[in-house]
């Protein structure tokens, strides 16, 4: 019953999405002119024939994997459901503004601070609350200083926490000389500092002349805890800022050795340092390859630095443009065909085994199925010829609540007729009921192969396995983003491989209106990843302000061309 509920909620969310997704897309109309749905009646793979037929539809929703889609959908859904969330936000906002309102807007003398404290209703932790408020309100540092003066006069000393907060204020405000003063004081007062203070000092001091001391602090930090990539990044920034490239690169190497993922800021810093000085070209290109291997997309800021670096290369004539890629996978700036999203045979075999071992079997076969069922499915798949398309029966049937479920499923199956279809479902679909018409189900069984799992088994993993087993030409129809199954895969490399395959082979049904022609969102034919073809580099990047979910890929590209 639990999974039953999940399905319902999932679909109820989903059937809203495409309805709502339309309006914001009008600006993309031009770009989508070339899009057309996955057309099934005429040929198997649309990708080979893209150039031939262009004119079927003008506005066509972007793929669910396009950046920013999830956020837009969420916003629209939130608007629909009312502003329950906002009330919570205003509550915490109120507390915050009240706190900030308490903070004086000018420098106070000791006695004035004393007055203020005596007037306030909650005198406990007064000083700390004050400085926290200053930190969040980004107040002028002199007010904080006057507060410290007051505390020092009252208590003859300053508590560590207060100093720490003051330090944070200095670092965030960029008061470098103040940071080094605080460093001297704290260093002499306390034998060891906490990790937060270390991090702040690394960040603060690396901006000053004393940046080498930041490296010493980093060493101290290592004794307590493994430094984060941000700590390393700050140190690298410090070294670059003061012209010591060797140190910067050795620190960067150390960061990579720790298995940490560098910050984009660090990379930007390194690329910018590369502009002015000709060295470390290989290392900078290695960063791009690292992005490719780990499927990291640079932010717009970093992509600008990369562009500037390429254009500054003296002996070569690189030209960078920010562009997009048309649906056939052709760069609209230089006309290069981008890498195909198809997996190699080896990758297919690897992915298939991983899905079988980690997604279906997992730690315990009984979690998602039973051994008998798995065996019968394996032999079922083996006996049939390779499928062309696999339908997630329950997911498709639940697309619209208005229709009888079996009717919806039958409509989709009929649309895909002519292909070798497999419909996956659960056994309860076979029992005739209001939602599952016996006649419809019989027709489905005539038009497609069917496999029904037990009601308490999961059907999605079987779908994935069957699709992978059938090979490259096989697509699957589902609205499920399969994230829970992706998460079962053990390492990030396999997960990326899975995602690549998914983007190329998942047919997402658009808004389904009974009686009308059924359309699928197009699958991507090119891989969205940093790529190099000798004389060109193509770097997909995240636009500013376009919040991308983890299961989405950027739509904007930086095209770098070397015109000799």
């Amino acid at each position: 019953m639990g999974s039953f509920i999940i399905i319902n909620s999932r679909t109820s969310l989903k059937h809203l999405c495409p309805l709502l997704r339309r309006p914001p897309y009008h600006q993309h109309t031009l770009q989508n002119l070339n899009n057309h749905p996955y057309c099934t009646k005429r040929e198997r793979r649309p990708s080979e024939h893209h150039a031939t037929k262009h004119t079927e539809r003008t506005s066509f929703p972007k793929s669910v994997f396009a950046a920013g889609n999830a956020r837009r959908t969420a916003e629209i859904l939130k608007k629909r459901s009312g502003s329950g969330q906002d009330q919570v936000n205003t509550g915490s906002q109120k507390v915050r503004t009240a706190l900030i309102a308490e903070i004086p807007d000018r420098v106070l003398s000791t006695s004035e601070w004393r007055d203020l404290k005596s007037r306030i209703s909650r005198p406990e932790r007064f000083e700390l609350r004050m400085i926290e408020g200053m930190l969040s309100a980004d107040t002028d540092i002199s007010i904080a200083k006057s507060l410290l003066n007051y505390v020092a006069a009252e208590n003859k000393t300053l508590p560590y926490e207060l100093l720490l907060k003051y330090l944070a204020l200095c670092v965030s405000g960029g008061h470098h000389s103040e940071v080094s003063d605080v460093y001297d004081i704290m260093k002499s007062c306390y034998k060891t500092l906490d990790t937060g203070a270390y991090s702040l000092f690394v960040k603060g001091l690396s901006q000053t002349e004393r940046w080498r001391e930041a490296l010493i602090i980093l060493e101290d930090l290592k004794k307590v805890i493994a430094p984060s990539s941000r700590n390393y990044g700050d140190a690298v920034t410090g070294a670059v800022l003061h012209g010591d490239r060797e140190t910067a690169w050795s620190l960067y190497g150390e960061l990579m050795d720790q298995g940490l993922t560098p910050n984009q800021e660090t990379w930007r810093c390194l690329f910018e340092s590369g502009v002015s000085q000709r060295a470390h070209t290989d290392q900078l290109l290695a960063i791009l390859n690292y992005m490719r291997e780990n499927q990291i997309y640079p932010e717009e800021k970093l992509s600008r630095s990369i562009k500037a670096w390429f254009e500054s290369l003296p002996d070569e004539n690189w030209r960078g443009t920010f562009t997009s890629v048309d649906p056939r996978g052709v760069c609209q700036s230089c006309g290069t065909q981008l890498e195909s999203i198809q997996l190699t045979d080896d990758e297919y075999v690897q992915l298939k085994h991983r899905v079988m071992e980690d997604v279906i079997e997992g730690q315990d076969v009984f979690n998602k199925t039973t051994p008998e069922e798995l065996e019968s499915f394996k032999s079922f798949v083996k006996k049939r010829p390779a499928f062309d398309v696999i339908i997630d029966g329950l997911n498709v049937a639940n697309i619209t609540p208005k229709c009888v479920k079996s009717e919806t499923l039958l409509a989709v199956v009929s649309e895909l007729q002519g292909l070798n279809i497999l419909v996956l479902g659960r056994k309860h679909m076979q029992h005739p009921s209001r939602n599952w018409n016996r006649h419809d189900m019989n027709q489905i069984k005539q038009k497609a192969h069917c496999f029904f799992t037990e009601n308490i088994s999961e059907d999605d993993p079987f779908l994935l396995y069957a699709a992978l087993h059938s090979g490259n030409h096989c697509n699957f129809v589902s609205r499920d983003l399969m994230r829970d199954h992706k998460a079962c895969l053990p390492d990030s490399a396999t997960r990326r491989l899975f995602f690549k395959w998914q983007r190329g082979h998942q047919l997402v049904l658009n808004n389904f209106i009974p009686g009308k022609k059924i359309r699928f969102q197009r699958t991507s034919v090119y891989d969205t990843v940093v790529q190099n073809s000798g004389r060109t580099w193509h770097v997909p990047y995240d636009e500013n302000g376009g919040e991308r979910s983890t299961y989405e890929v950027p739509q904007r590209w930086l095209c770098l061309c070397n015109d000799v």
Partner: protein
Amino acid sequence: MLLRVHTVSVMRRFLSPACTLVKYHAPNLFTSCSALTPSRSLSTGSVLRKDAPQQKPELDLDVWKSVMRSQVSQDDKQKEDREAETGGEEAAGGGSPVERSRTLVDMWRQAGKQVPDDVTEEQLETLAELTTKSSKRKYLRYLAIKEGHKKANREKKEKRKTERSVELVKEETGLEDAEEEGEGEPKLKNTFLMQFWTRSADRLLGWRAAQAMLYGQPLVYDMSYDQHMSRREMENTISQLMETEGWNRRSVDSFHLHFCNLQPDGAYQRELLRRYGQEAWDRLFVTATHQRHVDLFPREDLVYLTADSPNVLRTFDHTKVYIIGAMVDRSIQSGASLANAKRLKLSTARLPLDEYLHWEIGAKNLTLDQMIRILMTVKETGSWEKALEFVPKRKHDGFHHHRSKDTVERTEKNNQPSFKEGERNPIFLSKQRQKHTNRSDVASKQTVGLSENLSGQSRLRIALKSKLEEGRKVERKRNWWEED
């Protein structure tokens, strides 16, 4: 201003640490002086930092620095003295991971992070084993919260103690006023009722538990989930099991608890022994065994209760042996217990939560102690409405009982006008069945299966039981009278 700075430094240089009082007040004094006298013509800019824009030149914003610095010079001397005594030890201990985590805890405490005041050696070792910063932070936060609860409890107890002692004193003085003979000892009330001591209650409950071990309906806890749980989850499981045992002991008609699949040196056993202590554990009226439940009971009697089951437990069957997975999953592990049931081909059931409660969002798993209270209540009263009172209110939006109650009453009155006493329970079952056929057709099949399984013998037993309960449950009795 320049002059002032000089004097401060001069004073610092020449004053001995003994007269710090004067020294500390010096800058302060000067500030107030300068605020009063408008005769300052010296530039302040040379003293103040460039990046601290100054609107009110009469305030020196860096006084705190000199205060701190002077404190250091004073501290240094003390420290040197101290280090002369303990210096060797600290240098030696500083390298070990435990020592390092101790300093980490100290520093985090100073930095105002949520950290416990006292950390044991054992906890430090666990802390040192954690690799990431956030895991360390979370662990310490957890310890801090636990410590806070403990402290609050202790304070509460002490407060109550003092209150009581004050009261006692008052009473005594009052008594002495009344009758001179009172010799300070707590007086026994002169009453015809026997004093009911705590130990008498314990004995009574002990007897009841012993009786349950002989005649009670078995309830199995499946202890085969050690692989699925983290250390903390295991601790929580055992806490909940202890509470379960407590509730069961106090119930009117206890279950015979079975802890099955309990491996002799497994995590469950270790934690149970740690919490109960060997002696209490040995005396506990619970059947703990390493055997599987399928080896102890006939397969067809076993029903695995799991939230993931497709079947709904409509009626509580007094002849079945219900199994509960002894697992706490803080991150929801759906299907873990269902997988176990599937493996052993046991029938499964879930509580009728959706049928009785408005509960749309959130995982429908319950804690072990909630589970036993629900089962106990439904066993005693047969009413899910009463039983599901023990589902935490925060999780759901109340019962949809108005509708169901009406329908039940109507069907009762229309279809079954009068009954003989012995048939009560089968009727009760059938009325449940009817109620649910109205609601959903899928699940009702299960109920039919359950009620048909009732053999004649069990029917008799239920009838006996209901007779016994009759005396206790006045409310229910009244309902029956009404029916008759």
